[in-house]
């Protein structure tokens, strides 16, 4: 019997039972695909984490967990550490180690983090405004592309900060912010964030506010006491929950600016020497802040990720082995059921070897189809991993 006839007969048999064949092919494909796909996604996650960390050379923040500081500053997870006083940021800037960028990531507008920063952040991250224009004043914000898409927001719309504590009736008023632009997507957490000037973040924090002019006769009912140039207001003073052109001049800050809070400061050292000096500066025992190399913090994080990944991969391999065993069992049972068919082949002159080759060909076709599908899926997964990851995690 020629090899062509053997393949023909095997194919005919496999196509006679399409459901059984497809199940076997799918089982083989999944057995090969899953462990490798897990590897692809883990590599993608690690690479994404490390890329963002690599583009943030150094972080200065309050003492505590370096991972919490990194996650909060780079990925805008909720702030776990105490605030970094603004005086620490100004001290850092005065050292002139390089470009310093403030990060205030405490508040949210719904689910979207509100990031108070300076325009240097956009330059450093190469974030460009795709629609509209950059923030120019208090109360302005630009939003990430993903957020704009999800919430159907565009320049000219308003977005309101969420109150920190719904039960704190005397707490901070939500601030209605003017969306001036939508940033081009860069497939980082920036896509989901609301960016404001640091001073706007401090308004949300309640450190600055605008209110009716207490010297104005119209505000007489809000005045509790007037002594010379000093006016004390009562609780009825009208505070503005939105910064507009007419009321902008009334916004002012209270308290000592040195104590205003930040989450962290990004530091992009001017050169290697500045980097070393900055690292050394914060190693001193008297240092009240810590300096973190985000790449190292992320490496610690990915080590944990890798440990878990190894466990999951081992489990999938065991699962794969079991699946493969089942495939073998299915084939063996199938061959047993087809004993009479094989006897017929023998009676019409097929040699024992030919029958073995015939059976092997069926197994080979199923294995080949499974492996080809697994390889194709892996290639597709690799190419689309960046797009697939957010969808899968959502």
């Amino acid at each position, binding site marked *: 019997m020629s090899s062509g006839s053997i393949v023909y007969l095997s194919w005919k048999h496999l196509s006679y039972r399409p459901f059984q064949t497809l199940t076997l092919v799918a089982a083989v494909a999944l057995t090969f695909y899953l462990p490798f796909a897990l590897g692809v996604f883990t590599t993608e996650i690690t690479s994404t984490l490390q890329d963002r960390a690599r583009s943030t050379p150094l972080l200065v923040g309050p003492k505590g967990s370096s991972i919490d500081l990194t996650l909060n500053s780079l990925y805008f*997870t909720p702030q776990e550490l105490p605030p970094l006083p603004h005086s620490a940021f100004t001290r850092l800037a005065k050292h002139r180690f390089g470009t310093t960028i403030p990060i205030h990531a405490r508040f949210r507008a719904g689910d979207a983090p509100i990031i108070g920063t*300076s325009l240097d952040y956009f330059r450093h991250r190469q974030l460009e405004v795709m629609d509209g224009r950059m923030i120019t004043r208090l109360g302005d914000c630009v939003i990430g592309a993903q957020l704009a898409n999800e919430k159907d927001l565009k320049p000219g719309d308003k977005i309101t900060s969420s109150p920190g504590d719904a039960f704190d009736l005397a707490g901070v008023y939500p601030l209605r912010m003017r969306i001036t632009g939508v940033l081009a997507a860069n497939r980082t957490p920036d896509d989901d964030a609301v960016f404001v000037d640091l001073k706007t973040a401090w308004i949300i924090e309640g450190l600055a506010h605008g209110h009716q002019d207490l010297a104005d006769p119209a505000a007489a009912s809000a005045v509790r006491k007037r002594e010379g140039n000093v006016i004390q207001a009562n609780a009825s003073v009208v505070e503005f929950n939105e910064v507009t052109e007419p009321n902008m001049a009334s916004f002012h800050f*209270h308290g000592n600016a040195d104590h205003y809070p930040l989450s962290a400061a990004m530091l992009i050292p001017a050169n290697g020497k500045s980097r070393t000096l900055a690292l050394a500066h914060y190693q001193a025992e008297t240092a009240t802040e810590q300096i973190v190399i985000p790449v190292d913090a992320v490496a610690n994080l990915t080590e944990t990720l890798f440990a878990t990944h190894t466990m999951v991969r081992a489990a999938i391999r065991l699962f794969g082995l079991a699946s493969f065993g089942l495939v073998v069992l299915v084939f063996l049972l199938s061959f047993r059921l087809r004993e009479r068919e094989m006897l017929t082949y023998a009676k019409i002159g097929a040699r024992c070897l030919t029958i073995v080759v015939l059976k092997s060909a069926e197994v080979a076709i199923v294995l080949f189809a499974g492996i080809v599908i697994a390889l194709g899926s892996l290639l597709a997964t690799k190419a689309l991993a960046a797009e697939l990851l957010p969808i899968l995690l959502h």
Partner: protein
Amino acid sequence: MRAFHVLTSCAALLVSCGEKKKSTESDRGDRKPTIAAVNYPLAYFADRLAGDFATIVFEVPPDEDPAFWKPTDEQIARIQQADLILLNGASYAKWVATASLPSNSRVVTSESFETTYLKAEGVTHAHGKKAEDHSHGGFAFTTWLDLKQAAAQAAAAANAIAREFPDHKEAVMDNLAMLLNDLKDLDRVMASATAMLKGAPVIASHPVYQYWERAYGLVVPSLLWEPEMDLTEEAMADLRKIQDANPGAAIFIWEGEPLPAHIEKLRSVGLTSVVVSPCANRPSSGDFLSVIKRGIASLQALAE
């Protein structure tokens, strides 16, 4: 538990992650450097220091006071693009407090003497939970009328320019040396010209001479007059109050050229008008040095 926390954080933060752009320092390329200034003295200093290689951006229209000018969004956007933004400090240019400017491009030129800022009068009020008093008056801001402070501001601008454009450092420092010489000469002549004013108070039309007063040992009570305003009965009553509180005052300092009628009216109450312009905005003729020299010449003319 820790690993779980880390992993859940990872999952959450990676929801929006995919690939990313590589971050590099912004590249100026072939674009001509730009330096923005919030008032004319700083724009003049920047021009003297870096005018050869940089474009000086000074957006304030000629008829506006830069201290109270309100830029449009488009004007702020242009200023945001500057490689350096020279600020005066001392709460000068109220718009700066509400505008978004890149923190690393900002240079507060009066930082070296910020501990000696003078407080300006303003209504103080308190409200809210902590009821802390605060003033909307802020600081006196015409810092450059003390010409030693002007020199310090010029030096701060030069250092910032040299840091930002290291290729031009030598030229900037040479230009600074010449500018400092000019300012030193001006300061010496100003001290000499104001020496004869020390005997009696000098009344000023506007509260912008506080640093001039302190630097040259003068007593300068001020009104809130503009050169072109009507001198109403109410305005003259305010003047009389100041004259009563400062006996012996015989000279009245104007920020800008007053109407001839004003000069006559003040002469009738025993005051001689002199123009000492702070030159906060670009003059219609001449430059910062020539305008200050004109003020000095007016003071010297009084002595003669």
